[in-house]
């Protein structure tokens, strides 16, 4: 097992040694402080820190895109650099190597979430705290507001995992990081249009589409969701199926194809 951790360690090094990774963290740092700062300058300091956090959650797509770009490069980058042939001639099966990469990608996703919302909590407290209704007890008590924010973030994290897994699968299948990232981003932002065309409330097939289920926060206000035909459990089930399918396709293609890079 500790030998396998070394494989994951290798993949972590490939991620964190690169300048672009730290540029991502720098952007997140700026956003985590900048948004509450703007809110304060805009005279909104009375909204309270948790409302400030609510605004920050809207930026979670950045976290997804950053992690998806790491995922997209994880396999495809080895092919474009030609290093894949150096990597695959070690006494580790392709499946094991692929999962070490996947583990490092998921760890990166968790890292950006923890970094962004950790800093966001701090900056919201410093810049927006003290004025809001709930703030007196914000850091110690469990109010409904606080609960809602963390649930919101958790739901977004779940959707991010699915998109990042998609990017990872596309990376392994197409061996092009640009294509993998571009397709993933298209999927992320195309959802609204597709669900309008194939409205889940009208067509049964629509509710099984990835897009109708990625926004788990639709159940915060309404247990039947935006279309009135799904539920939290249903969406989690659909996401789980997509997740597993992405992984199976990724592993299958990565194991099967000849490496002639």
């Amino acid at each position, binding site marked *: 097992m500790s030998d396998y951790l070394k494989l994951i360690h290798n993949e972590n090094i490939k991620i964190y040694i690169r300048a672009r990774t730290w540029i991502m963290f720098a952007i997140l740092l700026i956003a985590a402080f900048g948004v509450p700062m703007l809110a304060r300058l805009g005279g909104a300091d009375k909204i309270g820190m948790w409302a400030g956090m609510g605004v920050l959650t809207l930026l979670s797509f950045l976290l997804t895109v950053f992690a998806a770009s790491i995922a997209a490069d994880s396999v495809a980058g080895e092919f474009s650099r030609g290093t894949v042939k150096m990597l695959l001639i070690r006494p580790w099966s392709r499946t094991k190597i692929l999962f070490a990469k996947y583990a490092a990608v998921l760890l990166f996703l968790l890292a950006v979430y923890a970094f962004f919302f950790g800093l966001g909590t701090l900056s919201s407290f410093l810049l927006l705290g003290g004025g809001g209704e709930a703030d007196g007890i914000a850091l110690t008590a469990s109010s409904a507001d606080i609960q809602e924010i963390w649930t919101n973030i958790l739901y977004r994290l779940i959707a991010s995992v699915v998109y990042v897994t998609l990017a990872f699968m596309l990376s392994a299948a197409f061996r092009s990081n640009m294509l993998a990232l571009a397709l993933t981003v298209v999927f992320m932002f195309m959802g609204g249009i597709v669900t309008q065309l194939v409205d889940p409330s009208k067509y049964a097939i629509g509710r099984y589409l990835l897009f109708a289920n990625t926004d788990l926060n639709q159940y915060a206000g309404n247990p039947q969701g935006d279309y009135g035909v799904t539920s939290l459990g249903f969406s989690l089930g659909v996401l789980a199926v997509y997740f597993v399918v992405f992984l199976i396709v990724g592993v299958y293609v990565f194991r099967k194809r000849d*490496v002639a890079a």
Partner: protein
Amino acid sequence: MDTISDRLDKSVGAETSGAPVVRFENVTKRIGGKTIIDGLTLDIAPGQVFGFLGPNGSGKTTTIRMMVGLMAISEGDIRICGSSISRDFERAVAPVGAIVENPEMYGYMSGYANLMQYARMRPDISKARIDEVVDFIGLKGRIRDKVRTYSLGMRQRLGVAQAILHRPKLLILDEPTNGLDPQGIRELRDYLRELTRREGTTVFVSSHLLSEMELMCDTVAIIQGGKLIDVRKLNGAEAAASVHEVAFDVGDPALAAEKLGVGAVRDGLLIVQADREQSAAINARLVEAGIPVYGIRTIKRSLEDQFLEMTGGGTIV
């Protein structure tokens, strides 16, 4: 100049015996209906430098890709130290170190960090071992620099380093002299000799240059169009007993030919048909006759001619 005594010295310890390190069993590779490797059957005995010679596009790299599991084998199997590369990959590849085509490295990491990547994928490779290998390949001064600043030759050296880090039983090198200067080629050759002699490593080296193969290999297999054409011993007893053209670099070749009563003058050299013992005798006679001998070299014209003939000459670049 590669003298006969050099050659004899090199063949010491290269006597081959024991179970084959690599066993190709009717290996066939088809890509999109095209047969690229066609029924390759070949055993490679341990402890030698084995040359895999063929013109460009003959299927050397494809064969090597199958040997290390990068490409699936369409038909047949390859066994390394008895284990099937297609059915028991992890075990079969464990004793292998390889460079397939150009060694590609992570340019954004140092040479050392690159080696660490591969060291972590093997059990017990110590820091001392890494240092030893770095020292050996002569990259000590630059090992902490980013690989993107390396020359092609330095990358080749780093490629060799990652391949030998774990003291492989089988070292596979795909056209390793590409990008090396003559000095580097010589070092590589000496090093491969050393590996087979000292650690018993079997080296499988591909090339499209016969002259290069002759200098470093004990045995050469020739392939063309994906088919094995010939396997031949170059050094050792069998080779020593056979008659070759031998070139003597002497003070006055015309006079020498006259004194010996045999041989001809070509390109300022005395050329004689002789086996190993006869060469030594001729040398003694020349020295006796007061003709200085500056060098003796075996010319394997027959193999070269055969290779050119078999592979259609013009396709060798």
